[in-house]
């Protein structure tokens, strides 16, 4: 199976000017997205997930600056394979050629991400009208079809509703419909379900999967819930302090995690059978990004920290063709170590569970 690259981020670094000084929110991110696949980015709050994808969309806030890097976007322009570095486009070009049309985004909070003064129908149609000058009638019909697609019953009636008429789950569906309106190649979902109930979350996730199946769109999915990752993602990027610390297929990450931070994330989530009297927790807090980071930013919280972590940031160690992690533990010089006991048990349980569900690998 050949995989078409859609998006290729290289060495992306972004900083913000703040009252506390310069804040390096993203410190050299590499990320690849292939056609029809879903990449998840997980990590704690403040690790730079949103900033990364906002850079793709060209909607960084004014105080933000791209320090370095490229975002290559591969697409077919008049049947010609074209590659474009999005960071080189002006804001205007971005809006005209990329935003909405080729890359669309769904935001975290459905309650605040719709314009309260415009009917949802118009909000869906707006993109089409702007980008393709679609005739109104056609746009209307397409909007109705989109509403159907995202599972809204009685779509014609909903077209005239205003956001406040709708529940959170409905609104998020609308936002997804807006994103899909111009048939983009890439859909970026920034924690689209965090603000929603579990049951609704499940529905939205299934909806995204469904749409992906139908349209073959590529999805970047941001979350800090590994359960969600498990459900939607093909590939996972674990992000910490503005860097990707581990990347791999979903199975790589769940069954063969390499980075101590990933271990922590996995263990902090009780699964159905967690019975231990204490949950595993990563001690401490994420680093303050306004301070210069020396060494591995994770080392103060890391039970497996090595002396070298204090001084030098680990590079990415490639394990397999899909799997890599940035931790000195993978270095040839690293001492012997065992995975945390709970993790071993957890993986064991997962395998059992698999069996219970009758899935064989």
């Amino acid at each position: 199976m050949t995989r078409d690259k859609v998006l290729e981020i290289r060495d992306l670094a972004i900083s913000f000017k703040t009252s506390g000084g310069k804040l390096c929110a993203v410190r050299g991110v590499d990320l690849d997205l292939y056609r029809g696949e879903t990449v998840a980015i997980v990590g704690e709050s403040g690790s730079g997930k949103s900033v990364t994808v906002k850079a793709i969309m060209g909607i960084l806030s004014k105080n933000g600056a791209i320090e370095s890097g490229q975002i290559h976007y591969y697409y077919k322009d008049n049947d010609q394979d074209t590659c474009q570095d999005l960071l080189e486009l002006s804001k205007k070009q971005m809006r005209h050629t990329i935003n909405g049309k080729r890359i669309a985004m769904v935001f975290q909070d459905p309650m605040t991400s719709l314009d309260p003064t415009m009917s949802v129908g118009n909000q869906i149609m707006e993109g089409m009208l702007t980008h393709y000058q679609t005739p109104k009638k056609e746009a209307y019909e397409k909007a109705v079809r989109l509403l159907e697609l995202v599972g809204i019953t009685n779509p014609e009636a909903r077209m005239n509703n205003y956001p406040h008429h709708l529940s959170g789950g409905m609104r998020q569906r609308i936002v997804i419909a807006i994103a899909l309106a111009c048939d983009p190649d890439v859909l970026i979902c920034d924690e689209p379900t965090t603000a929603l109930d579990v049951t609704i979350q499940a529905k939205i996730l299934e909806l995204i999967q469904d749409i992906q199946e139908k349209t073959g769109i590529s999805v970047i999915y941001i979350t800090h819930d590994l359960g969600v990752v498990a459900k939607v993602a093909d590939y996972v990027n674990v992000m910490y302090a503005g860097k990707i610390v581990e990347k791999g297929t979903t199975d790589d990450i769940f069954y063969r995690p390499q980075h101590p931070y990933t271990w922590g994330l996995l263990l902090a989530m009780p699964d159905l059978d967690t019975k231990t009297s204490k949950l595993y927790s990563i001690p401490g807090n994420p680093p303050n990004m306004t301070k210069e980071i020396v060494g591995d930013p994770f080392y103060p919280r890391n039970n497996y920290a090595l002396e070298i972590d204090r001084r030098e940031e680990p590079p990415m160690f490639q394990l397999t063709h899909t799997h890599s992690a940035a931790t000195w533990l993978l270095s040839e010089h690293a001492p012997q170590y065992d995975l945390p006991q709970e993790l071993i048990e957890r993986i064991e349980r997962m395998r059992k569970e698999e069996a219970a569900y009758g899935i064989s690998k």
Partner: protein
Amino acid sequence: MKKYIAKRVLLSILTLFVIILVLFTLMQWMPGSPFNDEKLSIEQQMILREKYGLNDSVFVQFFRYLKNMLVGDFGDSYTISKNTPVSLLLKNRLPISLTLGAVSIVIGSILGLILGTVAALKHNTMIDTAATFFSVIGVSIPSYVFALGLSYYLGFRLGWFPMLYSQDQGAVAYVLPALALSMTVTATIARFTRTEMIEVMNSDYMQLVESKGVSGMQLILKHALRNASISIITILGPLIVSLMTGSLVVEKIFSIPGIGQLMIQAIQSNDYNVILALAFVYSAMYVGIMLVVDILYGVLDPRIRLVKENGNG
């Protein structure tokens, strides 16, 4: 919605009633009387007070006033336009003041919106600072200084516009006074717009709109300004009223027969009926504008509509 408006109107009427009562009381405390000219003897004054019913008890006066008011009779002016029905004065002067007010508000709002929006879009740049500077200067130079300046340069020196108001000149007569008056409006609206726009531009839904690829004028007009205008509308109401009461300065400079000047003249000469009628007009205007603002609010902001519909059960 209808029920809501009816309820609001009723409340407004009640409010106005209380306002008249308050004004009436204040008026009783005013020192002096309309009929104390040097030339008038005490006996003569008593005759006049008797004639105009000022010797009756406050209650009698108040209810008589209310009763007459219901049929559009605001009494006669005592001093500043002797024996002229106040309603006639209003009829003559109010349209002029309203026209002037409306023109100034329109000019001021448009300029203010533009200025504020530009400042917000260029937040923290020289342009922003310049806009802020301009709008503050706009409110801090007293409008009479500004008015006389306009009259001197555009009227006297260049002769573009008439320096004095006259009814037969039509629209040109309003240009200079409206410009002078609209300074405050421009400045106030600009400042407010700037704040609002900065907030709206930072909101989540604007990010979504931008990520849809909407940009430029469409982004600003259809989304940002529309959302910002919801709160801008709220200051427009009080602004209009303060503009109307504050217009006396400009009225004086340009010899405009408006109601602003009348009010002050009336207060200074104890012309009770004129004071009451004008204060009533101002209050009614305020209450009316607030009503309109509330309704407009509903038109602009669909969320409000919902609440109000619910409000009717």
